[in-house]
């Protein structure tokens, strides 16, 4: 089993959560989201992000509005919907749970 594969699987699991986290608070343009995720080393190629954004939008967690740009084509600004916000808080909870659980197992507290 390759470590890259496992890493990819783990990253995949949290990527959607991270996108929601990045968008928490203010509407953002795609390149801003990309910038943040890239800096955090969550993604390497930008193409990965587009299908996820589209799916989250289609699932009703995200919405976007068009904004004119001074140069280039109009931009899509994504933001959380009401549903997205409640989804995010549910995710927050389970993420904390997961981290705690992993920490417990790691420290062999359950033994």
């Amino acid at each position, binding site marked *: 089993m390759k470590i*890259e*594969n496992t890493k*990819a*699987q783990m*990253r*995949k699991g949290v*990527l959607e959560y991270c996108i929601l986290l990045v968008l928490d608070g203010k509407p953002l343009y*795609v*390149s801003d989201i990309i910038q943040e995720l890239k800096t955090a080393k969550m*993604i*390497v*190629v*930008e*193409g*990965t992000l*587009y*299908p*996820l*954004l*589209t*799916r989250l939008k*289609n699932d009703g967690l995200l919405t976007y509005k068009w904004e004119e740009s001074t*140069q*280039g*084509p109009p*931009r*899509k600004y994504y933001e959380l919907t009401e549903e997205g916000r409640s989804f995010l808080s549910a995710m927050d909870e389970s993420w904390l749970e997961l981290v705690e659980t992993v920490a417990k197992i790691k420290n062999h507290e359950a033994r």
Partner: protein
Amino acid sequence: MKKTITINISGTIFHIEEDAYEKLQGYLNKLKNHFGSDPEGVEIVSDIETRICELFLEKGKGESTVVVNEWVDEIIAIMGTPEDFAEEVGTPVSVGAPGKGKKRLYRDAGNQIIGGVCSGLAAYFNIDPLVVRILMVILFFANGIGLLVYLVLWIAVPKAQTTAHRLEMRGKKVDVSSIEQTVRDDNPSEKGTASRLSDSGTPSKGAKIARQTGDALSDVLRGLFKALIIALGIFLIFFAFTGLLAFISSLVIGQTFLSDWPLPMNPDFQVSGILEHFVSRGTVVWGLICIGFLVGIPLLAMLYVGTKLVFNFKSNNAAIGLAMVGVWLLALIAMVVVSSREVSNFKDYTTLSNSETLFPAKGKALKITLGEDKFSAYAEQDLDFERFKMVNKEGRDILLGEPRFDIEKSSTGDCVLVIKKQSRGKNREQANEYVQHITYHYQLMDTVLLLDPWFLLGEGDKWKDQRVDVTLKIPEGMAVYLDENADGILFDVDNVSNTWDREMGGKTWVMLPEGLTMKDSIK
């Protein structure tokens, strides 16, 4: 110097170098294939295009505004290829529902013993290859059906050469993730097989030889099959081409300039010239047009199919094909209409009888012989028409008919020659006219009755099934000698011994109370 192309990405115009353009287009096509053509996929690709546009704009600031190859490379590195997406998030960002795709039958190259047919079938039906192999062996002993089935499938079924093929073979959807999965799953096993084969164990060696022989044999059979197809194509092209040539030349030019060629179809006859003597002019023209379509279209179709077989090109000419079929059917209907109209020209018929009592010299049998054939010297059209021929005398076509000669018993005791002429026509008047135009000559000289071998149709008259029946009525006790040359015009002459017309010539016949009797048989 480099050629640049103007493109429009998300509403912005860019100049792009040709090689860069090709690369960019290839990349975008790859993305389109990956994300699919449903609304979601289209949206994703258009988002990515918008981003590419922005990146180009950012790069173009202050520099030249022409997009170069390196830019495209950078863009692809930033955006990533479908393979990158798969790597980055493990299983992909596949949009459509993953899982089942179209199932296709392949020969399983990774699992083959001879040609991979059995393992391919097993993969297709999702059963153990061993079961299929045992079934195939059982079928092999049933009159060799198994062998036949195996060979046919071996030739017809393609080998699964790529990972995509192997996925289709098992009915799995082909996308980046499933391919990756399969490559991962397949490789260890393939490596295993390979190492096992190289272990030089006797059974493995045997298997290897079987597989190599199988592949070689399969190549040979496929080659033969291909050659056969091409040969068939060449034959079709040749046949259709010469057929068309001969057909057109006989139809339009009416010349036999091809007659010396070694062709399958020779224009032995000049269609248009001959037909005019038989049917009305309008019928000829329309009939020829119809025949042109009726014969020409299938020949063209053969030419087309032949070319397709030889050069193996793919085309989608359903519209043209359907139009051709439509025209052909129209021509068929028109032909039927034209013919039925022509048939009405034969509706009525008239007969005209002429009797003459003959007084041949007594004491000797009346010799019946054919007069000199005055038309044998003229150019003759090769007409395969019953009892008719057409000759060309000094530039004019003359239609000749063969009379029918019969011998009956006279009821009056006299020797009578009855000439009955008959013709058809679209009405009684026309038939009458045609009957009047028929000329037939005979001559009685002493004890010899000279009959003309042909009767003539009126000049310019069309063929309307004209007939001339020549009946000789002889009293009881009278003898006739039928010359050898006369048997050609004999028509179903009743006689006691039921002798066939062709055998009646060269003999003397006597009319007895019971009927015409061969003189030699009377004791």
